[in-house]
């Protein structure tokens, strides 16, 4: 075993609600995984112990680890459980309630009793300061340092741990905020200070204030957590640097993370998209929809022309509903770059029920991990999507996840029969297939939210399915959306954790310009990009990166004068000329037409924000290799049901390794350690060199969702 100690491992740790996945790869790309129970009170303990287990398995010491990359839900949990720091807000006189009034709008209609999320900072801890900056950055009322001093005294009395400072128009002139910060830092040692002009130098006071407050609220929590984790790793002899996954899919050092703690709030789901991005690169697929189905929710995201879709329109802490960007006001605005992921409350644990109108429904309530679906045998009374999949013969009754859970088919059948089929007067298989189909329909809305809602046609993409349930549902979802190809990567259940090891250091910079594009010379734009670049260089230097390893991408947020929302348009490298600026307006028009179906001719356009992204190319990610799974054994077979059109069919059950480059016709079921892949009739499956399963979906007859009745063939669009 001594040879192993020479190896340098990279380790990823992904904390979920139930399990923490630890994954390690060596220099040859061989990967090893360990699932440990999440230690809810002190998540860091589970992470450190999990890594130690892996090291013991390798017979290696702590110094064999090159770096540890971590995806964490600590910030999200602090927000959901309201256990963040004791936070104060300092704001412009007359505007302390901007935070509480939000944008007013509520996420549902017809609700006389709607409860908005309680403000993270109570009214009494929101302090007003006499000062005013105008819309062009001009000082209308100068700041009096003495007034700040008085607030500092009150902050001290209130035992405040973290202070958010958000003054009107600070994106245009941050000088007042900076002075406030200096005085607060001088006056109160050990207190966190978050400035809106640093966290989010963008126009729109509620969104900027809310983002800054979220940052202030979670910063001390993240700091304490990361410190503890580092200490635990050090105690275990692991001196490697700790890097943290960010909501935008890049990684940063723990130190840089602390500067903008709120940027880790959505770090969990980001890793799966990064893994998808890498796989796409490896397979030469530039257009992918990632589809991650877990126990409670399903998530979709778009990779287009080799680029991950990111957004800054995001809210944290709202309950999940069917994905619609119209559903705002249920949480806290957080406008930092985040991978654009649509999420719906449909997963394996989603409960199947019948509403008052007699329609069969799935979710959003979930049976969770405990008691879980009826078939887990842990006393869960509810029929769930997993139960339906067991009844249909898709999931293997017996062991799941290497024996972590045993699925009991009789319990699944009983729950669906008693709770759904009997009251509706329908057959068991009919109901099970219906529940499966409706789960698909719900998940399709997540995919539409990132594609058709944004003017993208899903048919131009391949569907990349992962998570425990994704590969069971993906082929039928693809069929309904006329997507021709589904990719199921190796180890689909651990795919997200792999993304941690593939992410690169990334840094995002933004500055509001907000001027008519026509009135801005190329010089002004070059000037702002110059500032952003200088800021980026400073950050890179602090992170120990070298300029020559960095690549830069530039973007501009543009809109027609007067519109509420901007489109983000890529800007090429180098100094811009007048011609480049004109071309920018033209590219915006083209993109507007693509997304919204129309463009305005001769309408002036505003340049709202300029953005710069710095990426540091790490060493090339090794190709992950998986030891070949069990060889083709005696061909197993079981009955699986594929809806009214195909009925119940004796379906071969294979291992991934049984597939080859020659396509095999469905129906097939591929079973592996952490997931099940369903290849329905009229689909074919083959194994790519990368060990991914490719399912080609026959779109010839659009009958994927059991919708035809009376044996009639539906017509095509």
């Amino acid at each position, binding site marked *: 075993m001594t040879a192993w100690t020479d190896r340098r491992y990279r380790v990823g740790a992904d904390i979920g609600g139930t399990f923490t996945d630890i994954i390690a790869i060596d220099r040859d790309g061989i990967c090893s995984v360990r699932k440990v129970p999440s230690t809810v009170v002190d998540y860091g303990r589970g992470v450190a112990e999990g890594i130690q287990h892996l090291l013991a398995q390798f017979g290696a010491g702590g110094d064999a680890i090159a770096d540890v990359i971590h995806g964490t839900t600590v910030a999200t949990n602090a927000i959901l459980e309201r256990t963040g720091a004791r936070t104060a807000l300092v704001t412009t006189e007359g505007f*302390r*309630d*901007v935070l*509480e*009034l939000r944008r*007013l*709008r*509520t996420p549902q*209609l*017809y*609700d*006389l*009793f*709607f*409860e*908005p999320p309680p403000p993270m900072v*109570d*009214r*009494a801890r929101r302090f007003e300061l006499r000062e005013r900056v*105008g*819309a062009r950055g001009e000082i209308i009322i100068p700041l009096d340092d003495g007034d700040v001093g008085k607030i500092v005294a009150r902050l001290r009395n209130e035992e405040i741990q973290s202070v958010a400072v958000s003054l*009107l128009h600070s994106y245009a002139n941050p000088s007042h905020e900076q002075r406030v910060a200096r005085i607060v830092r001088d006056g109160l040692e050990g207190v966190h200070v978050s400035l809106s002009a640093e966290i989010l130098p963008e*126009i729109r*006071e*509620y969104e900027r204030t809310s983002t800054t407050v979220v940052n202030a609220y979670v910063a001390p929590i993240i700091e304490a957590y990361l410190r503890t984790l580092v200490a635990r790793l050090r105690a275990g002899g692991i001196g490697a640097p700790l890097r943290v996954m960010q909501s935008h899919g890049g990684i940063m050092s723990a130190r840089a993370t602390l500067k903008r703690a709120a940027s880790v709030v959505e770090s969990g789901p980001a890793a799966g998209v990064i893994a998808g991005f890498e796989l796409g690169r490896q397979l030469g697929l530039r257009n992918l929809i990632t589809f991650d189905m877990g126990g409670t929710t399903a998530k979709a995201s778009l990779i287009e022309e080799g680029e991950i879709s990111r957004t800054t329109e995001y809210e944290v802490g709202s309950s999940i509903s*069917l994905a*619609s*960007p*119209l559903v705002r006001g249920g949480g806290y605005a957080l406008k930092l770059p985040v991978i654009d992921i649509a999420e719906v409350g449909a997963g394996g644990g989603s409960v199947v029920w019948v509403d*008052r*109108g*007699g*329609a069969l*429904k799935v979710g959003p309530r979930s049976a969770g991990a405990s008691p879980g679906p009826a078939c887990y045998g842990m006393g869960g009374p509810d029929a769930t999507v997993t139960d339906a999949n067991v009844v249909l013969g898709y999931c293997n009754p017996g062991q799941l996840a290497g024996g972590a859970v045993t699925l009991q088919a009789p319990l699944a059948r009983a729950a669906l029969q008693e709770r759904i089929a009997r009251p*509706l*007067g*329908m057959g068991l298989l009919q109901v099970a*297939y*219906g529940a499966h*189909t*409706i789960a698909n329909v719900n998940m399709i*809305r997540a995919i*539409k939210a990132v594609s*058709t809602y944004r003017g993208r046609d899903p048919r131009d993409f391949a569907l990349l399915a992962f998570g425990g349930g994704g590969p069971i549902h993906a082929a039928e979802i693809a069929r309904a959306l006329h997507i021709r190809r589904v990719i199921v990567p190796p180890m689909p259940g651990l795919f997200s954790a792999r993304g941690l090891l593939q992410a690169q250091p990334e840094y995002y910079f933004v500055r509001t310009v907000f001027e008519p594009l026509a009135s801005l010379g190329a010089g002004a734009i070059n000037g702002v990009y110059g500032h952003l670049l200088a800021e980026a260089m400073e950050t890179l230097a602090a992170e120990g990166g070298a300029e020559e390893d960095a690549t830069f991408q530039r973007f501009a947020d543009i809109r027609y004068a*007067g*519109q*509420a*929302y901007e489109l983000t348009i890529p800007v090429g490298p180098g100094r811009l000329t007048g011609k480049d600026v004109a071309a920018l307006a033209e590219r915006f028009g083209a993109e507007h037409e693509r997304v*919204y*179906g*129309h463009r*305005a001719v001769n309408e002036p356009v505003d340049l709202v924000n300029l953005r710069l992204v710095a990426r540091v190319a790490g060493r090339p990610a090794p190709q992950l290799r998986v030891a070949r799974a069990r060889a083709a054994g005696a061909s197993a077979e079981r009955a699986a049901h594929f809806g009214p059109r195909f009925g119940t069919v004796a379906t071969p059950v294979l291992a991934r390794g049984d597939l080859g480059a020659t396509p095999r016709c469905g129906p097939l079921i591929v079973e592996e350690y952490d997931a099940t892949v369903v290849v329905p009739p009229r689909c074919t499956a083959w194994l790519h060199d990368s060990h991914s399963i490719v399912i080609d979906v026959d779109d010839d007859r*659009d009958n994927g*969702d059991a*919708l035809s*009745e009376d044996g*009639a063939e*539906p*017509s095509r*669009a």
Partner: protein
Amino acid sequence: MPQSGIDPITLEVIQNGLAAIVDEMALTVMRTAYSGVVKDALDYSTALCDRRGEVIAQGLTIVLHLGSFPSAVRHILEAYGPRVRPGDVYILNDPYGSGGIHLPDIYIIKPVFVGGALEAFACALAHHTDVGGLVPGSNSTAATEIFQEGLRIPTLKLFDEGVANEAIFAILEKNVRVPGKVLGDLRAEIAAVRTGEREFMRLAARHTPATLRRYTDHLLDVSERLAREEINAIPDGAYEFETHIDGDSIETGPVNIRVAVHVAGDSLTVDFTGTSPQVKAGINSPLPFSESAVYGGLRLLMDPTIPNCGGYFRPIDVRAPAGSVVHPLFPAACGARGITGFRIMEAVLGALAQAVPERVPADGEGGNTIISFGGYDVQGAPFVYVDLIAGARGGSPRGDGREGVPHPASNIANTPIEIAERELPVRIERYGLIPDSGGPGKYRGALGQIRDVRCLAQEAVLQIRSDKRRFPPYGLWGGRSGSPSWNILNPGTGQHVLPTLTMGKIRQGEVLRHVMAGGGGWGNPLERDPDRVRRDVLDEKITIGHAREAYGVVIDPNTREVDTAATAELRERWRRDGRIA
């Protein structure tokens, strides 16, 4: 199967598909619109109607718009009948003869044909920044007939079998103050109905048109059946309520909205007999808008899971006397009819509070106040600033009224201050909650808000639509009214108090202050938990003086703890004196 030919699975698949379509339509408008009213305040709606005009799905938008689509579609069918063709897009805004609800709300409606047969209508409605008329914003409260309120558009083909009618675009462009915004918003509406058409056709192709029709018919029936079950559960009887609009800007009020809700078995009648006759000022509510307000009010009391389609309108009969303020006749002005719509909904809720007290909160701020400034900036370019101020709910049996939650009739958003100041010659100098303004109650009403706006243009026409000064938001079951609303020009010494509905001038450097009403309280304030009173004091939402005067809770100004003994004594004395019921 429980219903003949209806499969619960297909039912859900179709319902989900329809909901996805109307949301995608709403999103299209939101992202492509130009004006602040539409893009930031989100004052617009989208829906799908079936071939007869019944609503089969509605976007997550404005409740008061949604019940008005059937009437607009019916007018299209009546006016054009067999001449409704694929590729048509209809436009209308006129309340007299076209089904409109006031001139700024322009409907864009596209019939959807599948295989040559008319199957549906994709509908969008947006509140446009300006449609001409007396004042910028076109909601003049000084107009006395509809001709003064702007451009009237009867039901016309904006596109005739796919061909644009350039004349309509040209006439619109010349008759509105900010044509860029209006035409931009119109394009957004057109994009939305095209999205609706495309997606509906896909759904129809997947399920066959005949199947889709069967299921949408069924959805309407289900919605009706469930609404009837809900009504059946309300005790039979006649429940009456009267609420008031302070007055119109031309004659002194009040304008009374009287309603009697007769519940009989599984249907009910909402009768407005006794409501004030139509008035000269533009607060007359066209019948489709009044109906929409009634449907919306009743829907608030029903199970929210009832399918979101027009079937639930069926058991509801609205009787609005012709010539009244809730059913005005030509040529009554109606630009500011929103106020009347809000009052109608509040009257319906107030009446049914007697029947289902556990489901009805006290009155809120009364819907959004609208302030508009219009004129020309220093460069001579026209501008219109429209500000919506809203969000103070009444106390309810479930707890305190919530601050910053808009009236249930109108789910609007506010306009970012920084955006307004960057784009328009205004400076907003104050925007926040007003301590002590919530109506006292066991559960108090939400605090009202204050907004100060300074005019930076040379001069502008100022228009205000507000209410609830003489008749502030009502309390229920012993709860007190919220504090009243005010409009003040140049607050301070030399200030002028302006009427609730008014039009006038504002000059450079002058400040308009709007004080919004606070929500009404629910239940006896003497029963309010002293600890809740104390928490409001700590949160600076009420003062120590108000804690004592309104709630009989004595709080020590130094320790800020409740003086339990003094509180008990004071409350006991007040109860004995009958000071608070």
